[in-house]
């Protein structure tokens, strides 16, 4: 066992697993667990096929930059769509409870028929979960292969028991198991958060991950590496608060104008009447 390789692979993979698991978790909580897990398992199966077919050559054949760009752009589109709806609801420009009411009505109807609507597969949820797990899983595969086949580790294969790739794979596997266990622990508290707040958080996260991966696809090396995700999330969070305040002011102005117009209309009508 090469502990240096295993530890490095553990730390690097943990970051990637957290990124993938975050999206699987929010899809599970906001859409449904069935869609989230189907997407995640489908991505894991795709990964197994890719890694099984290409093996170590995956580093040469899979264009990770292009993949990051495509997944990043799609996440930005999804994220902006969710953020827009959540911001409109917070600012009062869109009814905050309409979807919940419709959802409850549908649930009641379906329950009356003996079915369950919330467990239906949602293509949006499956796709989100699939893309995140596939991309991050590929990154983990890249980490395991690059760490495991680095010149400093290959020299050790004869003296150190198991080889570099096996050590890196063990490090990554332990990271994956730990992240999944931690995720299972935070699942229950997440259910207590109101629906619109969750959608807002998901919108922020999708836009953050999307921006990060799109940037990487364009060759951007973000300052402080993956920790820059937190900075991006903070930037988007602050900006959306400003946007909510701006839209609220705009709505108040519109209401004031409408009131003034309504007040002046009867007065004009009285003047015209004999």
């Amino acid at each position, binding site marked *: 066992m090469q502990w240096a390789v295993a530890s490095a692979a553990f730390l690097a993979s943990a970051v990637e697993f957290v990124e993938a698991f975050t999206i699987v978790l929010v899809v599970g909580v906001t859409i449904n667990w069935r869609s989230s897990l189907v997407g995640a398992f489908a991505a894991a199966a795709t990964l197994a096929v890719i890694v099984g077919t290409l093996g170590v050559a995956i580093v040469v054949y899979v264009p990770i930059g292009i993949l990051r760009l495509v997944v990043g752009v799609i996440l930005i*589109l999804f994220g*902006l769509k969710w953020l*827009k709806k959540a911001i409109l609801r917070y600012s009062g420009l869109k009814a905050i409870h309409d979807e919940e009411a419709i959802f409850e009505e549908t649930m009641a109807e379906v329950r009356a028929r003996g079915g369950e609507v919330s467990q239906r597969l949602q*293509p949006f949820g499956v796709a989100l979960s699939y893309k995140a797990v596939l991309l991050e899983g590929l990154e983990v595969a890249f980490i395991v292969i690059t760490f495991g086949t680095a010149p400093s580790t290959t020299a050790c294969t004869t003296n150190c028991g198991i080889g570099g790739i096996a050590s890196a794979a063990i490090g990554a596997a332990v990271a994956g198991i730990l992240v999944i266990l931690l995720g299972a622990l935070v699942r229950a508290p997440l259910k207590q958060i109101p629906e619109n707040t969750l959608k807002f958080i998901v919108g922020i996260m999708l836009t953050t991950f999307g*921006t990060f991966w*799109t940037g990487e696809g*364009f060759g*951007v090396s973000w300052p402080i590496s993956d920790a820059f995700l937190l900075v991006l999330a903070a930037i988007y969070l602050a900006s959306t608060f400003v946007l909510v305040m701006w839209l609220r002011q705009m709505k108040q102005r519109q209401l004031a104008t409408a009131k003034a117009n309504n007040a002046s209309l009867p007065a004009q009508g009285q003047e015209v009447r004999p």
Partner: protein
Amino acid sequence: MKVIKAIYNFIVGDMIILVGVIIALIILALINTISALAPLRVATGWILVISVLVVLTATLYREARGNR
């Protein structure tokens, strides 16, 4: 046509977001390919962040105006 519309609605469903993101990507691609724009490459990440915020502001502004 129905398939394209279904994909459009599934992925984004908002023309301002779609066009805005495409324009941002074209700008970033130009910055990364044209040598005359090479000095801007260091700011690619920030240009992307600002573009995303501009697109979000534009689509929200349209919604707010539509509510009048």
